[in-house]
């Protein structure tokens, strides 16, 4: 394991895989470098897909800039199908076998498909995760559908709803829970975004689920909700979450399931018995790693910033030789979203938070920073149109500062601690 690697294989050619490839070369790795991608596209950027690409402002080609001297072999459109840990090789759909000295698993996630395959197969029913999805949905939106029905109360659903309103397309947004965006922002801030969406003309229906879809000659024609309401529509977007691309690891001996591929703090993949899989690393959405800001609870973070940071850490550790020279992945998760004219930014993880305090601005102005507390410590902060304060809160979260973290500050209301 301490020998210098000569062959590195990266499975997954999206943001994390791409960032790792660059970081390896930056760090002077001169051996062979192969990237295996399930999609036929070179690595591209996803955040614009639900916004500028759908609006038709950008083309769906959001290929990430690639260093001319990267000197990597891209094997695209031929997904990896099996990992042979003992033989140190990856097998691909086209039958090829790629031996490695170091392997990075960055296979990410895919859109969770609509559970009823017959309904999912109707023309006019979409998911949105990759470039091809965005191209298809964008083309459909340009035909001015009578109404778009969005299923899912997360950020993708809200961003697409916002885009549709910008395009003046009627939107119904179905959210299964009582409050939208609650998983990431908590009910209070999630509720605020819901209010804004309603004001922008979104027909937001909470605690609402689809009973069935109606097709007409293979095209979506209407949906019936569980409460009996029927909505005529020719376009439905299922934004109901993601699935981790771990099936190809079945039988490999790695500890991987729907929650992700389990790693240690150094981005090394772990075996079922908890031992380190020699030479195998993971990064990005697929990796489930111990979060130092939450007592090393395992977390998989599906954010752009984490994909990049974790890829860079993994790349450094792939070249580090032995464990004593490795560095810990201690990225503080951060996330941003733009919708309905608001910029929302989040640092830290709100999961399990038991307290919230608006520390700048106010809910009424819809311009605020809110800090989240958990058992007396500061664990996250969310900004709506006030992102420039966040670095101070980021530092407080890193230090696990007492909650609320910063008092007597500029533009700070009297702090009232409430439930998130």
């Amino acid at each position, binding site marked *: 394991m301490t020998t210098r690697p000569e062959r590195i294989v990266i499975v997954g050619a999206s943001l994390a895989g791409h960032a790792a490839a660059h970081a390896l070369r930056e760090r002077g790795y001169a051996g062979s470098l192969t990237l295996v991608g399930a999609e036929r596209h070179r690595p591209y950027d996803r955040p614009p897909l639900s916004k500028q690409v759908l609006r038709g402002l950008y083309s769906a080609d959001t290929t990430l800039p690639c260093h001319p001297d990267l000197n990597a072999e891209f094997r695209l459109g031929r997904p990896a199908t099996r990992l042979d840990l003992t033989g140190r090789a990856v097998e691909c759909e086209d039958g090829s076998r790629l031996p490695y000295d170091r392997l990075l698993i960055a296979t990410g996630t895919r859109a969770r498909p609509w559970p009823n395959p017959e309904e999912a197969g109707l023309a006019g029913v979409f998911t949105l995760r990759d470039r091809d999805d965005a191209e298809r949905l964008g083309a459909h939106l340009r035909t001015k559908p009578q109404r778009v029905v969005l299923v899912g109360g997360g950020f993708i659903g809200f961003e697409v709803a916002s885009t549709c309103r910008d395009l003046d397309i009627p939107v119904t947004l179905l959210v299964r829970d009582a409050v939208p965006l609650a998983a990431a922002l908590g009910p209070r801030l999630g509720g605020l975004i819901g209010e804004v969406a309603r004001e922008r003309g979104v027909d937001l229906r909470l605690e609402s689920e689809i009973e069935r879809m109606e097709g007409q000659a293979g095209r979506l024609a209407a949906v019936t909700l569980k409460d009996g309401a029927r909505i005529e529509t020719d376009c439905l977007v299922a934004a109901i979450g993601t699935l981790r691309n771990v099936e190809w690891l079945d039988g490999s001996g790695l500890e991987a399931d729907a929650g992700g591929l389990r790693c240690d703090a150094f981005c090394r993949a772990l075996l079922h018995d908890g031992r380190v899989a020699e030479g195998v690393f993971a990064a990005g959405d697929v990796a489930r790693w111990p979060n130092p800001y939450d007592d090393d609870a395992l977390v998989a973070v599906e954010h752009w910033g984490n994909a990049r940071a974790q890829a860079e850490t993994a790349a450094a550790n792939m070249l580090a030789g032995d464990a004593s020279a490795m560095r810990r992945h201690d990225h503080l998760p951060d996330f941003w979203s733009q919708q309905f004219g608001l910029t929302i930014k989040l640092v830290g993880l709100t999961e399990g938070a038991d307290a919230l305090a608006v520390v700048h601005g106010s809910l009424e102005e819809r*311009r605020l920073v809110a800090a989240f507390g958990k058992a007396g410590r500061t664990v996250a902060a969310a900004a709506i149109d006030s992102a*420039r*304060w966040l*670095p*101070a809160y980021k*530092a407080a979260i890193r230090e696990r500062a007492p909650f609320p973290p910063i008092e*007597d*500050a*500029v*533009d700070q209301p009297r702090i009232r601690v409430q439930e998130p």
Partner: protein
Amino acid sequence: MSGSTLFEQILDPANRANPYPLYAELRKAPVARQADGTYVVSTHAELARLISDPRISSDDLPDPQKFRWTGHPVTDLLVRPVRAEIRKRHRPFIFRDPPDHDRLRGQVMRCFTPERVRGMRAKTQAITDDLIGKMQGKSRIDLVDDFSYPLPVTVICELLGVPPEDEAQFHGWATQLATALEPNQRGDEENQAKNEVCFNEIADYLQGLIKEKRKDRQEDILSDLANEKEGMNDFDLIATAVLLLVAGHETTVNLITNGMLTLLRFPEHLERLRAEPETAPRLIEELLRYEPPVHYRTRLALTDIPVAGITIPKDAPVIFLLAAANRDPIRFPDPDRFDPDRPDNRHLGFGGGLHYCVGAPLARIEAEVALVSLVRRLKGVSLTEDPPPYRPGASLRGPRHLRLALEGVAGE
């Protein structure tokens, strides 16, 4: 200079040509308390942190009831509102905190669209070509008076929508008003009186211009601001226009002049820029680190703030010494070396946090067009004195004159 604090020595014009040894001294303590109770922050990590700390205020009209004056000259000058009556009404957003700051800055940002800023490149090139053309036949020039000064003032007037025939007036006003930002200049009572007269003149002028823009909307920033639906009141509008004029002009003058001075001190970089103009953006980032136009900004601590093992006490004036952080050896390897190839150059040349320079994209374009054109067209150019004479200001630091000898001027 024994007996005076390091920061007072920085204010002393005698140290203007090379303040960097003093900065290195100051960095020995990341947050250094001066004898008068001012706290100077000079290291990169601490500055990067405090610059977005909400317990730090940029409001230069602190409540006098709450503020405990120390009575020391430096502290007093840093925090005493200049031209109090005028400033109460006409306060630009750089001297305000949220929410007012956010509202005013937001309105300006909406006018400073990327398209509009990019659109200034051609205009900047035309002005540059014209100014360099005027150097034909001369063997000696003063880069400041002949080039660095007129370029940005014309650009900002164009953007704001000031008619070209009034530009000369603006030139004088801007120079005078910039002295208000310098503690070692603005204290003088005569100068304060001058500033007041000057401000009244510019305010009257702008009031008239705003009225015109409301009647006859043009394609410029002042027209946009004056006609916004939920717009600024006239006091804010004038303060904003004056700010854009002063900030968009004193700073860029220094960026261009410092840039040329640095290139002449390191001729291999001058030659490289001439041969590879596409390297200009990185060179300018390094300039912003190595010789930034803005050396420090002043702030106030709203509460006790623990940092780097000490506590900045409530109500203390805080100096953000950006130019010292830019040369912090903990952050930048070999910081005193001018190296445009630095891979990681997160300088604080444009500040940071809430008050990050609104005009940064414009400044980059102006510096790029100016320096690339100067090195391409000026033949056999050399410094006739080094160091050149500096302006007295320690905050907006730059040469007053940069006298150059020329062998000739190449065509466009």
